[in-house]
């Protein structure tokens, strides 16, 4: 058994928990894809699962399908992605800043609160059939003739736990960055100057035209990865606060109905709510996902290729612009809402969204130039997954720009194009491959163990890449042919061939994921894995007893 440090062990626990949520997420995705291909194929499984559901009635296949669709993104985003990010940042932030996490006790608390919150919100869908989907369009989550009352209350509580926990995590990260626990620390003013780009602006004003093609940042500035984490965490906080208010509203209406004092949903404007909700939700979809991902590229690529990041001073500005862009893009979700002012749809929905084209375009350019200038480079497992993730963000982002367009959205809104070609490509090919890259890079750092099988890495890489692209593009093509998202088509489903190809892609993806899990298990060994769950003394005594 390898001796693994306290912080390293918690990072591994976060990663393992995240992967468990990804497995659940993938299983649900495969079930929904199967339902689209053959709605009766899962009746037996549905009947067995219904035994676990304490709802007091026999749910229809549609109720099961939509409640699963509601639960699916919760475990994918707040289970897999957030837990992986939390674990990685809790290790990387102190490692790069050369100081301890400010509140160490929050590390296990964040771990357990996230699991409890995600399980509660996910369980509200899976067990209690809450089916309002993650969009929570007002007043559907409080329309209790369509959505179960208890499920709605439990979902709101779970969402609130997740958001409070994310605020605690962000607070801990901010506190760590500004804590004065080492001589080279950054004060709050320095943090603001660095993360908001003020010091770069001052330098630019003072040294404009010095002819230096690649000026180095001021040594007093934060590492570029920490700048990304800090700026991304501003989005994370805004997102958590906004979703907390939405969840609180649903909770108030749910409790009022439970206590026989129902409130009038018409008191809340659905359009105003939709603007508020998407403004907050886009802090994740178009905010921290992009900024955190960029930050990880800026950190990993120079480490993996052994060269300084190309154009570091430019990417610092890019991260700031990304933050500003993320504050203004939400109307691209309201392009089909005719009461939304047309100037908002064109400006916020289309043109500001193109700001991401510039920020991600420059980010990817800096990343690829760094690799290019470092030739010859060794294509290690993390570097290969980094390249896969860049490819995923490139094509997923391009698909997003096609739909975030007042003209093209007329025929693409709410089709499979949106959720498959854009969202699933961003999440599976882009974000997930980046998280895998981080895991491949971190495991040797955390445990001093090398990834065991290169062959399994290959199976993982190509299975995941081919599977995710097959799935996304077959459904995207179905979207172009008119197939809607959030639609359980009755038999005969006119888009069955495309759905069947997507299901095959999902299975290839699953093979890739399985290869990854086996490789990680082989690398860590079951003793190290068990030591993540049981106290070390108990593992040691169990080993002693067995020998």
């Amino acid at each position, binding site marked *: 058994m390898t001796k693994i440090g306290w912080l390293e062990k918690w990072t591994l626990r976060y990663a393992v928990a995240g992967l468990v949520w990804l497995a659940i997420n993938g299983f649900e995705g495969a079930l929904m894809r199967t339902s689209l291909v053959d709605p009766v194929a899962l009746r037996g499984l549905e009947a067995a699962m219904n035994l676990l559901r304490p709802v007091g009635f026999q749910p229809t296949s*549609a109720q099961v399908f939509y409640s699963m669709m509601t639960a699916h993104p919760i475990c994918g985003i707040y289970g897999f992605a957030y837990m992986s990010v939390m674990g990685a940042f809790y290790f990387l932030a102190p490692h790069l800043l050369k100081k301890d996490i400010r509140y160490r006790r929050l590390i296990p608390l964040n771990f357990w609160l996230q699991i409890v919150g995600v399980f509660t919100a996910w369980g509200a869908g899976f067990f209690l059939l809450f*089916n309002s989907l993650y969009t929570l369009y007002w007043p*559907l989550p409080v329309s209790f003739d369509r959505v179960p009352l208890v499920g709605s209350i439990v979902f709101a509580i779970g969402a609130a736990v997740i958001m409070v926990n994310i605020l605690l995590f962000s607070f801990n990260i901010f506190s760590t960055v500004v804590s004065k626990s080492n001589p080279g620390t950054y004060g709050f003013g320095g943090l603001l100057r660095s993360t908001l780009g003020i010091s770069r602006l001052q330098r630019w004003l003072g040294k404009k035209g010095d002819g230096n*093609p690649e000026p180095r940042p001021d040594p007093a500035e934060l590492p570029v990865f920490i700048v990304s984490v800090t700026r991304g965490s501003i989005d994370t906080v805004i997102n958590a606060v906004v979703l907390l208010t939405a969840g609180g509203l649903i909770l108030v209406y749910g409790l009022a109905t439970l206590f026989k004092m129902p409130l009038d949903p018409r008191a809340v404007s659905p359009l105003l709510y939709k603007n508020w909700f998407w403004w907050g939700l886009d802090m994740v979809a178009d905010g921290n996902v992009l900024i955190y991902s960029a930050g990880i590229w800026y950190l990993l690529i120079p480490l993996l290729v052994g060269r300084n990041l190309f154009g570091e001073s430019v990417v610092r500005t890019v991260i700031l612009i990304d933050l500003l862009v993320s504050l203004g893009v939400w109307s691209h979700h309201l392009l089909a*809402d*005719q009461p939304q002012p047309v100037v908002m749809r064109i400006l916020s929905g289309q043109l500001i969204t193109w700001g991401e084209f510039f920020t991600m375009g420059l980010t990817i350019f800096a990343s690829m130039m760094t690799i290019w200038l470092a030739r010859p480079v060794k294509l290690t497992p993390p570097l290969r997954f980094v390249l896969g993730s860049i490819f995923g963000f490139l094509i997923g982002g391009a698909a997003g720009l096609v739909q975030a367009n007042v003209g093209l959205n007329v*025929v693409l809104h709410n089709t499979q194009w949106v959720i498959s070609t854009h969202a699933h490509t961003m999440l599976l090919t882009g974000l997930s491959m980046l998280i895998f890259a981080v895991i491949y890079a971190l495991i040797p750092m955390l445990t001093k163990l090398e990834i065991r099988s290169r062959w399994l890495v290959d199976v993982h890489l190509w299975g995941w890449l081919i599977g995710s692209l097959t799935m996304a593009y077959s459904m995207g093509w179905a979207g172009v042919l*008119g197939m809607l998202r959030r639609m359980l088509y009755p038999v005969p489903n*006119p888009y069955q061939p495309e759905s069947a190809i997507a299901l095959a892609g999902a299975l290839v993806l699953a093979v890739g994921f399985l290869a990854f899990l086996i490789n990680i298990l082989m690398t860590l060994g079951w003793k190290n894995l068990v030591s993540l769950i049981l106290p070390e003394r108990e593992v040691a005594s169990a080993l002693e007893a067995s020998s």
Partner: protein
Amino acid sequence: MDVRERRWLYVLIGVFLVFNVITLSPLVPWQRWLLWSKPAPTQRVNIGFENYQITLPTGGIEAKVGEPVEFAATSNDVTYGLGVFRADGTMAFQMQVIPGYQNTLGWEFDAPGLYDIRSTEYSGPEHPGMFIKQAIRVIP
């Protein structure tokens, strides 16, 4: 900024300009009347959404090819979507139907035929049933 970055930025600006100018211009057929000419509609079609039901005007909907028609949709409970589909299943156009608002969109059909209407926004588990086949008749 490095000269290579500057060149790349010019490429990005070029793509931005070309894509947005084309898609905001009348080269996208419906942008002609949605953004630019905004013709006065020759008829207004009122469609109601409530309790998973789509209510069409009495006597059905009939339009001529090229005639500007205004579709006005209202909902009395939750958010729905008004989607108009061709006989082969491809989407002609759609819009969200927000409760408490007049949701209007002008359209000019480019081909005769029978068009279906389907709700394009999830409104609860019975949402897949919100479908009316051959709801619109478009004549030459």
